[in-house]
């Protein structure tokens, strides 16, 4: 097994390199993403071949006086999320910054976010988890605050305040875990058997604190209001990372606490109900949006709510569905934000009331957007179908006939998305004329994401064979 810390060291080295060789920012960040992807594919492949179900951990001495170690672990969940994150990061750094403004800064931030995301997904204890959580929040903050569009200031402060609130709760929960766990351990995976020895009210408090912290990040109704602003005001690269990867931080945390904390069972029914409400709420809210990036941002809330619902089923297949849903959603939402960014770049306009007949002059982007809708509405042979199957089988197993209800929010989602694409993309009577061309690099980004969507959609067993042995 290769040292997992390489996953943090390599992007850090590239971070330093970009700071020095400013002119090559884009190339260096792409290489960094490629190096990360190669490493992860190597770990993924070797786990797949060895078929080991165990969590692989590597520890370094860190704060011996408190008994805190620098522990890095990969479980099967984190492998899948790492794979997703590196594909998105590759597509992001290859294609995102279409205006080529402040390229060095955006490359730096992408690599910083890469450090945060990799570190979070391989963190073995909650201490490390918290550190990388905050690194992962800082990079998108600047993506919004410096590189964003018109209302970027307000959106970025809203984003950072929500996320700080979330990390405050997270820290409180972690401190509680530290004091109440036997032997003061913070190890995420070995805590699994230890929660039950804590008093019930402490377990409930810890669970609630974790839950609200992750819920803000995911996000779920009613703590979702930062998301549409943040995602629509960020730069294209920022939106891809925010929606594609940052929301999965919360999903990852949710999966961890639901799998490891037995107390979750007493909350799961209410959480499933909340997730269902959240999905429909966001679907209706989406219908009032006219800004194409805001529309895509709202689909994130819907899909993440469905993923939350899947986690709340607390069945093995539900967890797999949630994991596959995160893989699927990360790839497709990055694709849609990239397409939306392409449209903004070409037409200097995001209002779907003004944009007309885009497919006349931007065929590629229009069809990419259409495929994105197909995936979101669960077209077979794409990742969306596999995740829908798994999620709702889990739903029915857990809640009987009511377990199918959240699926119907996809009617609203798909119905509205088709309305948008029909009015603004595929009705060519008076097409809007573009003022710029789509950069070739953006097409490379489309290709990477589309290819991944179809590979994992047609060959889902690549991922599922790994997860089947054990979800952790």
């Amino acid at each position, binding site marked *: 097994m290769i040292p997992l810390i390489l996953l943090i060291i390599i992007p850090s080295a590239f971070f330093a390199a970009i700071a020095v060789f400013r002119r090559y920012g884009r190339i260096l960040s792409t290489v960094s993403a490629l190096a990360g992807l190669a490493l992860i594919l190597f770990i993924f492949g070797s786990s797949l071949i060895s078929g080991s179900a165990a969590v692989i951990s590597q520890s370094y001495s860190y704060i011996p006086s408190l008994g805190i170690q620098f522990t890095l672990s990969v479980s099967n969940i984190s492998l899948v999320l790492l794979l997703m994150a590196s594909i998105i990061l590759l597509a992001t750094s290859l294609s995102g910054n279409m205006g080529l403004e402040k390229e060095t800064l955006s490359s730096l931030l992408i690599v910083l976010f890469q450090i945060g995301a990799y570190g979070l997904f391989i963190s073995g204890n909650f201490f490390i988890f918290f550190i990388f959580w905050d690194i992962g929040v800082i990079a998108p903050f600047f993506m919004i605050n410096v590189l964003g569009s018109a209302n970027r200031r307000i959106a970025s402060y809203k984003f950072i*305040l929500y996320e700080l609130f979330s990390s405050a709760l997270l820290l409180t929960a972690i401190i509680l875990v530290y004091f109440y766990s036997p032997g003061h351990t913070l190890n995420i995976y070995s805590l699994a058997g230890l929660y039950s020895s804590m008093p019930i009210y402490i377990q409930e408090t810890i669970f609630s604190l974790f839950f609200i912290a992750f819920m803000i990040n995911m996000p779920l109704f*009613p703590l979702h*209001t930062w998301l549409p602003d943040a995602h629509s005001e960020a730069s294209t690269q920022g939106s891809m990372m925010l929606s594609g990867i940052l929301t999965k931080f919360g999903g990852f945390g949710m999966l961890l606490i639901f799998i490891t904390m037995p107390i979750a069972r007493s909350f799961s029914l209410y959480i499933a109900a909340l997730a269902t409400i959240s999905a429909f*709420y966001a679907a*209706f*809210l989406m*219908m*009032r949006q006219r800004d194409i990036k805001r529309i895509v941002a709202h689909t994130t809330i819907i899909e993440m709510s469905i993923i939350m619902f899947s986690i709340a089923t607390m*069945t*093995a*297949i539900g967890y*797999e569905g949630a994991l596959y849903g995160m893989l699927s959603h990360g790839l497709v939402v990055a694709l849609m934000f990239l397409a939306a960014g392409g449209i903004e770049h070409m037409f200097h306009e995001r209002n779907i009331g003004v944009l007309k*007949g885009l*497919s*006349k002059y931007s065929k590629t982007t229009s069809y990419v957007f259409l495929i994105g809708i*197909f995936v979101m*509405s*669960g*077209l*077979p*042979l794409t990742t969306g*179908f*596999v995740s*829908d*199957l*798994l999620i*709702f*089988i889990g739903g*029915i*197993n857990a809640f*009987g*006939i009511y377990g*199918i209800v959240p*699926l*119907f929010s*996809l*009617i*609203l989602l*798909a*119905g509205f998305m*088709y*309305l948008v694409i*029909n*009015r603004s993309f*595929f*009705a*060519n*009577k008076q097409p809007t004329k573009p003022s710029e061309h789509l950069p070739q690099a953006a097409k490379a980004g489309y290709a990477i994401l589309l290819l991944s969507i179809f590979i994992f959609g047609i*060959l*889902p*067993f690549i991922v*599922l*064979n790994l997860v*089947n*042995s054990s979800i952790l």
Partner: protein
Amino acid sequence: MDILYLILPLLIGGAASLLLGINENGKRYSKYAAFAGALGSSILTLIALAYPAMLQYGQIAWFTASGSISFPLSFSFGYINQVLLILVGIISPLIFLYSIGYMDEPGEQGRYYVELSLFAASMILLAVSGGFITFFIAWEGLGITSYLLIGFWMQKDAPPYAARKAITTIVIGDIMMLSGILLIWASLNTFNFAAIISAIGAMAAVPISIIVALALIIFGAFTKSAQFPFHEWLSDAMEGPTPVSAFLHSSTMVKAGVFVVIILLPIITHANLLWVLLVFGIITSIVGAFNASGSTHLKKILAYSTIEDLGLMFVALGLNAVSAAVAFFIVQAIYKALLFMNAGSIMKANNDEVDIYQVSSFSRNRLLFAVGIIGAISLAGIFPASGFFGKLLIDSAASSNATVYIILTVLDFVTGFYIFRWLFIPIGHIGKNGSAAIRAKYSALSKAMLVPQVILAAIALLLTILFLYALTSVSIQAAVILTAASLFGILSAYLLFRTSPNNLWERSRSREFLSKGFFVNKAYAYIASGIAAIAIGIESIDGAINRLVYVGAEGILRIGNSMRRTGNGIVNTYVAALAIGLVLLIAILVFVI
């Protein structure tokens, strides 16, 4: 030969025509590549039907989740699969051939043929599906390709709107179908049709979750097969290119829903849900037949007639008369493809005019007129044409139920009436462009458009021989009543539209009412505005949540500001605060502790 090879030529042909379509020099070969692909698939299908022994099918493992839950792709080659395969195998190359003549604008042909090839491939996949996973893949494939094909002419006004209506209905159906599939899986742990049928058949009482699941599947089937209240997308789907309409209405897409209901009919019967099929079938066929009498749109009359036909199929299934439904399934595919191709030829000669009062007659081209008549008498159910047997079998199945039988007989009359109205009105018009220009256009019609019609007309007549050979006993009484009702309809059409100069029907209130489609579209609009109203409500709730956050933030800011003011640097304030604090502390120490 693996069963999946049946769609391989279509996929190759589609890909080739897409690639050729991009290339400036290859453009004109695009259509031939697609036609070759369709022909290849069709030949393979016919070989497979002739030598079923050499076909390999069964179950392919796709993926496994959660350790033990497997999602296999199953295939089957039973009689209903074969029926559908024959129809697609015959009609699909004819549609591609017709397209060569019809889609004569060079641009965008690559896009058209790749979509059409994928559409045909989805239909073949659906026809050989033996389990819900395979079926659903094909089902969704049909949905999205039909959406793309209906909205093919993006530069016009109506097609994008029609495509949106279609896809919205299709999405509703997809979600219902998927829910039903998953609910059935949750009860039986299988996706395989045969296993599901035998498992439910063995149950003494069908549990409520399976009844809900079957209801969801039936309504999902209704959306694709255009049953009331999901039927309006089909009449709008006329905005697509005519070959697509001919394909959509005959052997593909709309037959997908009928197909799944035929497969699941044993368990639908067992779950006592036949009445759903019967009731919705009757409503749909009435709505379809009367709308067809009211419309003046050359293709919409045929579209509403398809809706009626599909309703009749569901009536037959609701009466548990599978053989009648299947017989009608076959004959309807043939005559409807023929009639749409005929309408497309008229449109082509009349510069895409679609109003039956504006287009000029067929009699300028005798061949077109002759095949049109064969199609029309087949639709009306007059003897030498095979449509007669389809209708006769359904009527005979209904003869034990007086209400249904009377309704069907009235519909026979209406069918004869509207299809001959469709045939008679354009005769004798000079048309917009004057007779000479139209005559020239008629004679310039491509052979590629005429040949498929002649072949289909021949099949429509030849099927009669097959029926005469296969049917052992028919009810003479039902045959006489059917023929009389249809002939009476034709006679009324003749009297109204051929002899009387000022025809009463067209200006009557009732026709105006019928042309409005029973206000189904209005109901759709009300539902849409209801959803929009909910969205507005939700938006205001969201605004309130947002304000709450801002108010909270502002409150914290105020507290911070007022706290800050206490640190004002004046010693007196500090001393006063110190004194108050001391007093409070002593008070707490004394009184509380």
